[in-house]
């Protein structure tokens, strides 16, 4: 059985001291000081705390630390490296194609929800490189944006898909 205090985070092994039943969010933000996953509701309703666990989007606010023992966790901070690895790039880019698209389309207002938006969209694009608008709306529906930036986020995900070679 894997040691509950160890898991792989953004390409490195980490060992933490939080109790095994501590929600992963607090391990990442309080103990490991990451800024990507962030508290939004604590109820798995909004997507603010989302991370990828073995490539699957997961709400870290309701996931105990013990559930990710021995697994691979990727946060917003790790997305450029994940992109580089998935595309076999020699160098980790400053921005992922999705981040570049969000910047190009100015698809961020307050920017707080972008963590979960990017995590979920990364999962979507890994499974479906050329999502239709409806695919995007359906996949993203569990993520809230109080600023109401939805139309621009949809456009940014489409732009990212195109720039990564997917044909929507």
């Amino acid at each position, binding site marked *: 059985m894997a040691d509950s205090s160890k898991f792989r985070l953004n390409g490195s092994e980490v060992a933490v001291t939080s109790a095994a039943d501590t929600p992963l969010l607090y391990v990442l933000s309080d103990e490991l000081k990451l800024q990507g996953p962030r508290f939004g509701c604590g*109820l798995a*309703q909004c997507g603010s705390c989302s991370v990828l666990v073995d490539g699957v989007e997961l709400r870290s606010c309701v996931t105990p630390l013990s559930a990710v023992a021995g697994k691979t966790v990727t946060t917003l901070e790790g997305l450029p490296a994940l992109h580089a690895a998935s595309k076999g790039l020699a160098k980790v880019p400053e921005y992922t194609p999705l981040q570049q698209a969000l910047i190009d389309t100015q698809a961020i207002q307050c920017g*707080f929800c*972008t963590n979960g938006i990017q995590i979920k969209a990364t999962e979507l694009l890994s499974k479906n490189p050329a999502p239709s608008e409806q695919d995007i709306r359906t996949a993203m529906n569990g993520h809230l944006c109080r600023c109401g930036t939805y139309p621009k986020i949809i456009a940014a995900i489409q732009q990212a898909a195109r720039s990564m070679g997917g044909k929507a």
Partner: protein
Amino acid sequence: MNTVTLNRRTLLKAGGTLVISFPLLPALAQTRTPAAGPPDARQIDSWIAINSDNTATVYLGFVELGQGCSTALLQVAAEELDLAMTQVSTVRHDTNITPNQGGTYSSAAMHRGAPQVQRAAAEARQALLALAAQRLQLPVDRLRVENGIVSGRGDDNASVTYGELIGDKQFKLAFTGTAPLKDPATYKLVTKPLPRNDIPLKAKGSYAFMQHQRLPGMLHGRIVRPRGQGAYKDGVQIVSVDAASIAGIAGAKVLRQGNFLGVVAPREWDAVRAAQQLKVQWRQPANLPGNADLFKRMQASAPDDRVARDEGDLAAIKTAAVTSEFTGYGPYQAHVPFAPNCALADVKGDGALVLCSSQDIYNTRTNVSALLGLKPEQVRVQYHDGAGTFGHSCWDDVAQAAALMSQLCGAPVRVQFMRWDEHGWDTYGPAHLGKVKASATADGKLLTYEYHGWQHHWALIETTEQSGKGTAAAEWPAMSAMQINPLVLGGQYKIPNIKLVNHHVPGVDYLKGAWLRSPLDLAMAFASEQAIDDLAFKLGRDAYEFRLQNMVDEHWIGVLQAAAKAANWQARPSAKNLSKAEVVTGRGIGLGTHLASWGGAVAEVEVNRKTGMVRVLHIAGAIDAGRVVNPSNVENQLIGQLTQAASRMLHEEVTFNTTNVTSLDWSTYPILRFAEAPRITPVIVQRIQDEPLGAGEEVMAAAAAAIANAFFDATGKRMDRFPFTPERVLATLG
């Protein structure tokens, strides 16, 4: 953009005031030492500093809320200073550093803020040119400036930079506001859709939000209150607290002052657990009307009436060809930022540092210092962005809670409101009841208009102060944004006989209120613009043409036409040849604003007559906000406010029973999601020669009305209350 994470070691005591060094800032610290503000707004140095590297630091009083004002205000400054955008930057809002321009509300950042920044920059440039004239031995009118390099016209070998002239030194110059401004026709930066300077860091996740701030030795705090507020006057009432109930959580401690209750712990999750496990018995009086009796009680309350407008004679209605009477009900709605508010405070005996997301740091300094028993100048308040807040959410309450808890435990305390704290203890956008009676002549001229509106004011005392100090609940004195709005209530039209009456309801008997993006306007336009629409319907006229015939103001006409054009409006009477299909569609139009600017909208909706589900398919929204400094920012503001207007019309309602609020999360207070997000067509009516006005909220009322009128066009029935829940829709369809 400087994002500063405070380090305990950089905190120094100086004359009883906490001083923080900003290692990331320009060399400006050499010329200005942080001191209890506000800096003197009548001095140029309070607004602008020229650095030796030929850049400028601009001190702004308006905060970045994701609306892009920090970029747009720098555009204004760079334009007047003849600098490139890469040569201007700003600093964190801080009561020891930045000027007091008033709060960032009422869409005031550009309306009030831009002219101040523009005039300060123009005056600084004038002073710099005078220095350059002396240095270059040329008359001022022979000088030209580009990117902060002053040179002689046609004689480029003689030049000097701003940095060389005054870098790192102060102007020591009175700000008179008299320097000539550039001709808008020559603008190079203003009116350009420049990208926001905060977005790349936000996209990467390296932008430090309020929620990311930490201080060494800091404890994590949580407030402990009943789930959901009761009547404002009742506040929080503790019967008993069983501190032993959290004895099992290492390091967790109960903090109490009066009826204010909180817990702290070194680890965040322990503080969360302690707040949930702490056994408390509350007294919760049943003094609320509950949703069911809300409007009945509001209308029955002791009258405190004011006539807001009274022209002509309503008796003219006797000669009207058509009349329309309509009562509209708007619910309490919540700010509920995507992330609940957070604050971090370090209170010492003779000074306090408060990091928070206040939209008005000087006002927060006043109320926090009163709570702590300190003088305002002993308290330093810094702004750090949280999630988009759209008005007065819990940022003052959480700042007070962090300050009080730090004072009680003698350590820095970071308080993060939980989702139920933010949803349940918000100062909500107040409910509104509107009764309108309007009439028109046979040839389609508006003849009479009468409106009565009921609502209460905003909460003046935060719950932390109310519970911790025993201060009685109190409402703000009357101000325009908390009463009926003549601009929205018939102000769009030429109406010879008009009377508007404001009925103030005593707010301490209800939920806490405050300004929520376009306060009251959605509910007012919802009632008023449906009555106008009804007159057009009864005359068999097209809703757009009927409005246009009754308008004289070029601004209103401009946004009406722009919205109609963007939506490809086809003239026809509404709600004719109604479809019997299960899913029907309709289009509607509306006009409205908040305190300035002009908004027009056309909405297309889809109604499922079997399930009662309503979907907004498309909104075209047009704004005239005078000179739009950054059209990209305003486009985003239009997308956001129109989407939020759809959310508020379809989904959002604070629910409560007689003792407390029951909408405490995203499941009990749903908002619009990706799957149903409408297509948005934002339209800007650019008026480059006019002064800038607000653009953050002024098309929401028009959109609310357009959605309601589109529902009528689709179904032939009028909704008299929002949000349009399936139950209400089915009841209305009959």
